[in-house]
């Protein structure tokens, strides 16, 4: 663990929380009558990676999906409290969820490329949002996104092949390319490497580290090593509550709460 923490340079600094890009205040989430999240207040600094850790069923994915309102798809899900992105309440009536989701991209647990060509996978978001004016511009943006996702060299000669023909790790990077093509401010990642082998995982982690210069990344992960490797900040969830939040280094080395300590040392989870 110590080693993992040293692997990346610590880019966090004290001024991060003066101007958080995402700010959640007193968020409660209910599935029907069952309450899944209790009074979560959590800020995310811009251009940093924040990881959400905790045992299964602790509500970290639920919280993640509140940030781009994917929870709206579940009819029984009810959200109380306040989440602001750059000062705008995203649950306000005036907010268009389609615009919100163009602003807050998401990468899912299982790679889910569209059953279309590699090119179309990346171009789709650009097309529906009308972000390019010409075919060459579209092709440029697609190439650029694939390069940023470190996939271009592997697929440049077979852009017409279906996205589903790639390996699992390549598919996940394709999904990342698809997400960054429309240039969101924030990227949510829901255990993006849990379905991948160690080598593919390492590539994704490397990519996450590079992406944080342009994007704010919030990642849910089950692997504490991964959280230690990729994130500057860590929030520990337990049974729907936010137990502890702080610099990743602090959380893993000198946690304040007993439950955090037990979790990061592998005693519960």
């Amino acid at each position, binding site marked *: 663990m110590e080693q993992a923490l040293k692997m990346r340079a610590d880019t966090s600094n004290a001024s991060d929380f003066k101007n958080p890009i995402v700010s959640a205040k007193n968020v409660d989430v209910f599935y029907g009558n069952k309450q899944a999240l209790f009074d979560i207040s959590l800020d995310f600094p811009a251009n940093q990676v924040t990881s959400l850790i905790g045992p299964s069923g602790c509500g970290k994915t639920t919280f993640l999906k509140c940030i781009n309102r994917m929870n709206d798809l579940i009819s029984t899900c009810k959200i109380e409290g306040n989440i602001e992105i750059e000062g705008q309440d995203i649950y306000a009536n005036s907010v268009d969820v389609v615009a919100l989701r163009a602003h807050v991209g998401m990468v899912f647990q*299982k790679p889910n490329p569209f059953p*279309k*060509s590699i090119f179309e996978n990346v171009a789709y*978001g650009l097309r*529906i949002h009308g972000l390019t004016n010409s075919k060459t511009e579209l092709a440029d943006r697609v190439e650029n996104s694939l390069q940023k996702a470190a996939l271009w060299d592997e697929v440049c000669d077979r852009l017409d092949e279906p996205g589903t023909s790639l390996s699992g790790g390549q598919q996940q990077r394709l999904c990342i390319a*698809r997400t960054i093509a429309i240039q969101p401010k924030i990227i949510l990642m829901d255990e993006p490497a849990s379905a991948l082998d160690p080598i593919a995982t390492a590539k994704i982690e490397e990519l996450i580290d590079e992406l944080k210069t342009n994007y704010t990344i919030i990642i849910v992960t089950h692997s504490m090593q991964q959280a230690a490797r990729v994130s500057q900040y860590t929030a520990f969830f337990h049974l729907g509550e936010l137990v502890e939040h702080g610099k990743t280094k602090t959380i893993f080395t000198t946690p304040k709460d007993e439950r955090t300590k037990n979790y990061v040392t592998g005693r519960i989870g």
Partner: protein
Amino acid sequence: MNRHFSVRSKHLATRHRFEVIFKWFGRISIFLALGFLVLMLAIIANMGAGALQQTRIALDVPLLQEGFDINYLDEADYDGLIKSALRQRFPDATSRSQKRQLNNLLSIEAPFTLKKYVLKNPDTIGSTARLWFIASDDVDLFFKGSIELAPEGNAGRLISEAVAWVNELKAAQAIKTVFNFNFFTGGDSREPELAGIFSALVGTALSLLICLAISFPIGVLSAIYLEEFVAKNRWSDFVEINITNLAAVPSIVFGILGLTIFINGFGLPRSSPLVGGMVLALMTLPTIIIASRAALRSVPISIRHAAIGLGATPIQTIFHHVTPLAMPAMLTGAIIGMARALGETAPLLMIGMVAFIVDVPDSIFSPATALPVQIFLWADSPERAFLEKASAAIIVLVVFLIIMNLSAIILRQKFQKKFCKNNF
């Protein structure tokens, strides 16, 4: 080894035996079903094969100069010419019944064949024309061996003298069978030897086109709306139960609906493929909706998440990603519905598509009949010769069905390829 493991699992032999027995039951059922299918097809093919052959009789018709006025060629007494030619050919026909039988050797179409010939070749007047005329149904059946010779010397409705005439023609090589083009190009007729399937085929094709054009888009769009946009509540449950029940409503009820609403209400033309197709569409809709909803439900949720997470609107998600993936299964549902519609008779009876239609329908508004109705009409006719026509029509119906299914399979594979590869 075996003994060693069997200690741990009891009744192992019995458990395996059940598997073997079940497999054999399955195999036997499939072979039985296939056997019956082959038997049925063989019987129908055997019965219907005769309809593909048409018997023709050669007759020398003297075209005497005095029988024709060169200015009014189409008003000449062609019927009389044929009759006298027949009397000349078989002078032994003297009694009334023999004469009637003699005139019945040829189809009532014979004078028209002669007339057409004369109008085309007016210079042959004055000579003797040897023409191959279509034989009547009784001669046709006897010559093709479909009717056995009775011990009394007659064959079906052919009296013994007529049997002798046919045998004499055979000896003189003045009777033969040719391929029955007329069956595929002609309309229905009171005379079995002249009856054809074409008008019914066109009627069916038009009706099915209307049915597909109405039911597929409406069915798929309804399924999309019900599956993706309607909030689940008591009202949507009510709609769902109704659709499921509609799929089980006897088809004749749809016919009554079509009669009261489309014909009496909207004033659309009776017996037309338009109304037929609309009625069949009503009948097919529930099938397509149910199949399409199941198809939509089977599309993995991850695809929807991917699109929605990217900022696609629900409509874009459904039309760009979900529907293309569901399309093959939707097409299968549509084909099942269309196949049912193809074989449907009852609702068409209600809207008048059972009428005796000779002409080939030239638009969706003109009166028409449909293949299954035509089969029903022929099977119901007293003339024995219609039996083989009915069987042949069944073959045509089955071929139509196979072509429809094949095109659906090709379409489906094209769709699958298309949406695994490129564009939207």
